[in-house]
């Protein structure tokens, strides 16, 4: 276990004040200057999740997330610490809103002259499946808020362990200014059990701990440039690393890992599952710094199979009304009209990443989408900002071992960053869900939009996880999940219920969702035009998801979090 020493002697290891052994409040306390800690929206504000008690799950009074303000090295900082003991650190409506609203308040202060850094302590299995779609959206809001704050003050991610960071929250980790890990930490998009459920035990054996840490472990992430600082589990050393990160301030625009499409592209160009690379090969292949790697003479894959007709392909072609449909890569299609760029992820039976052949969002899809979005931003820098329309029909993100080895979360962070950058630059970003929109796939391609439209059709499914996998992870049966979904609307797989959550800007009824008629195209086209108009006059952040009529009913708890945090943000108020 010498790797757990991370440079320490065993005497130092025994004498250390452990960080991992602390609860969320203890961790926040260990990082902030002594005596400066002020807990906001704490247990006595009773912001517990409204969705757990009806499911027979005991809630926690602060919903398992501590927000603490204070100073680090004398500078204003807000720490958001996830309690890993409570429901595996899963992101729910309330716990997610606490993080995003705290980041937004820090951004507001930073913009008006008080730079306020944020530290996020990631210990999470990802979206809390008991609050599925509200958790998924909460993650999208957290990602957006990280990106809102990041240009003004550093956002420091800390993954100490032992839960680690999984699911969509790892995308947020990939957006951080600096990421600090311990050898006990793990960072991945899909957790081992989920990959095993979706891809079989040959794809990933979730009982093989050596494999898990070889792929997701803090040491490996650091050795491949996906984490910046590796420190042993010692509160003093973690605090010192946080102090350093905050002192270093905000890097130049374009230098964040999630903005480095050049690095991502060069890494993926030399990475091929067909050669069966092992985790141990990656540090040599890519290097430990996040800089471009030299190109190899890898031959381009020959195209053979005809791509299958899918809703994404059909709607992209129909909505762009005769514009040339161009394949950025075979699995990412683009069509550009005078006022919009349409993008869709589609199946590619010859995808060299075999876990992404059915239209999943994988590594190369994330990169291609990010590049396409950045191209529009670049082209319109001094012109009217064209709309970007994400046509969404994707089974999920790619659940694969090679995806996790390469850091799928980091590739998705690049796409999330790109869509956010477009929205903030004034491009109306509209998502149109015409088929499935599952989990991390939807987080990457759709959930950063100003406006989200969906077809009211049985083939449209929006959710945080496939039902079979969700059943396995939450130790329930599929029948039990069906029963719960009748009363707990964020858990429902029915798009009509999804539309009640506060972030649906239009539920559209068409006659043929598989093969749209001219009238269908007319109707959806008009809805997009209207959504673009609303986006141009509406907010460029995601606040409309809390201010909508539906949110006033369904997202009462999130709105209370926003009010309580705003009221308590400054001392004495």
């Amino acid at each position, binding site marked *: 276990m010498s790797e757990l020493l991370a440079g320490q002697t065993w005497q130092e290891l025994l004498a250390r004040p452990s960080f991992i052994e602390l*609860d*969320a409040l203890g961790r926040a306390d260990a990082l902030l200057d002594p005596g400066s800690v002020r807990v906001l929206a*704490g*247990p*006595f504000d009773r912001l517990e999740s409204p969705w757990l*008690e009806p499911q*027979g*799950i*005991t*809630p*926690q*009074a602060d919903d*398992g997330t501590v927000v603490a303000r204070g100073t680090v090295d004398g500078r204003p900082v807000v720490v958001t610490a996830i*309690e890993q*003991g*409570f429901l595996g650190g899963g992101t729910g409506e309330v716990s997610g809103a606490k993080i995003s609203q705290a980041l937004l308040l820090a951004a507001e202060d930073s913009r008006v002259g008080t730079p306020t850094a944020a530290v996020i302590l990631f210990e999470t299995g990802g979206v809390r499946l008991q609050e599925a779609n509200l958790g998924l959206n909460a993650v999208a809001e957290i990602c957006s808020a990280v990106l809102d704050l990041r240009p003004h003050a550093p956002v420091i991610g800390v993954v100490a362990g032992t839960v680690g960071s999984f699911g969509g929250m790892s995308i947020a980790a990939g957006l951080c200014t600096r990421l600090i890990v311990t050898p006990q930490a793990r960072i991945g998009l899909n957790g081992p059990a989920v990959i095993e459920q979706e891809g079989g035990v040959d794809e990933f054996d979730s009982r093989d701990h050596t494999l898990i840490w070889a792929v997701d472990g803090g040491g490996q992430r650091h050795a491949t440039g996906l984490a910046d600082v590796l420190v042993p589990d010692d509160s003093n050393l973690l605090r010192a690393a946080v102090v350093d990160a905050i002192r270093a301030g905000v890097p130049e625009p374009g230098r964040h890992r999630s903005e480095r499409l050049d690095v991502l592209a060069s890494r993926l160009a030399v990475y091929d599952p067909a050669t069966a690379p092992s985790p141990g090969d990656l540090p040599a292949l890519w290097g430990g710094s996040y800089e471009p790697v030299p190109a190899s003479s890898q031959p381009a894959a020959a195209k053979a199979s005809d791509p299958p007709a899918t809703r994404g392909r059909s709607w992209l072609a129909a909505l762009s009304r005769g514009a040339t449909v161009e394949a950025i890569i075979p699995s990412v299609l683009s069509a550009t009209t005078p006022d919009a760029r349409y993008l869709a992820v589609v199946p590619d039976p010859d995808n060299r990443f075999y876990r992404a052949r059915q239209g999943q969002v994988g590594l190369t899809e994330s990169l291609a989408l990010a590049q396409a979005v950045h191209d529009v931003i670049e082209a319109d820098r001094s012109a009217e900002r064209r709309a970007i329309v994400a046509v969404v029909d994707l089974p999920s993100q790619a659940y694969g071992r090679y995806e996790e080895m390469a850091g799928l979360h980091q590739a998705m962070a690049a796409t999330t960053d790109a869509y956010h950058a477009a929205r903030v630059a004034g491009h109306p970003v509209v998502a149109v869900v015409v088929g499935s929109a599952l989990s991390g796939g939807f987080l990457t391609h759709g959930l950063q939009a100003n406006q989200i439209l969906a077809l009211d059709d049985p083939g449209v499914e929006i959710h945080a996880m496939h039902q079979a996998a969700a059943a396995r992870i939450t130790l329930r049966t599929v029948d039990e999940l069906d029963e719960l979904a009748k009363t707990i609307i964020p858990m429902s797989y029915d798009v009509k219920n999804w539309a009640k959550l506060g972030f649906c800007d239009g539920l559209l009824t068409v006659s043929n969702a598989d093969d749209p008629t001219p009238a269908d195209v007319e109707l959806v086209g008009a809805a997009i035009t209207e959504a673009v108009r609303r986006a141009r006059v509406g907010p460029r952040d995601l606040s409309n998801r809390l201010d909508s009529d539906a949110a006033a009913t369904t997202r009462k708890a999130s709105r209370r979090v926003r009010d309580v945090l705003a009221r308590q943000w400054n001392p004495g108020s």
Partner: protein
Amino acid sequence: MQTLNYRFPARGVATHPIHVGVVASGDLEILLEPPGDDGDGVVVRVRTSVDGFDTVWHDVLERFFTRTPLAGRWELNDFGATPGVVNLRLRQASEAAGTAS
């Protein structure tokens, strides 16, 4: 999940709010607040993930509050803690309530 309510007589009074523990597997959190409108005794609400242990809860709480009759509103959010853990958390909360805020 079950919600259980108990009342016990008291002598001392909690003067400031106390929070201890986590709703983690085998653990519980306790929120203790000074007495409210519902009287000046010990008022306990237990929410527990494990059904059917009403009698055990009653006995554990009665024994504790007989020795430590600290008036206040006690909320216990439990995730399958054993009686031993429950006792430790109750002592932790009452000791914290006895120190100056």
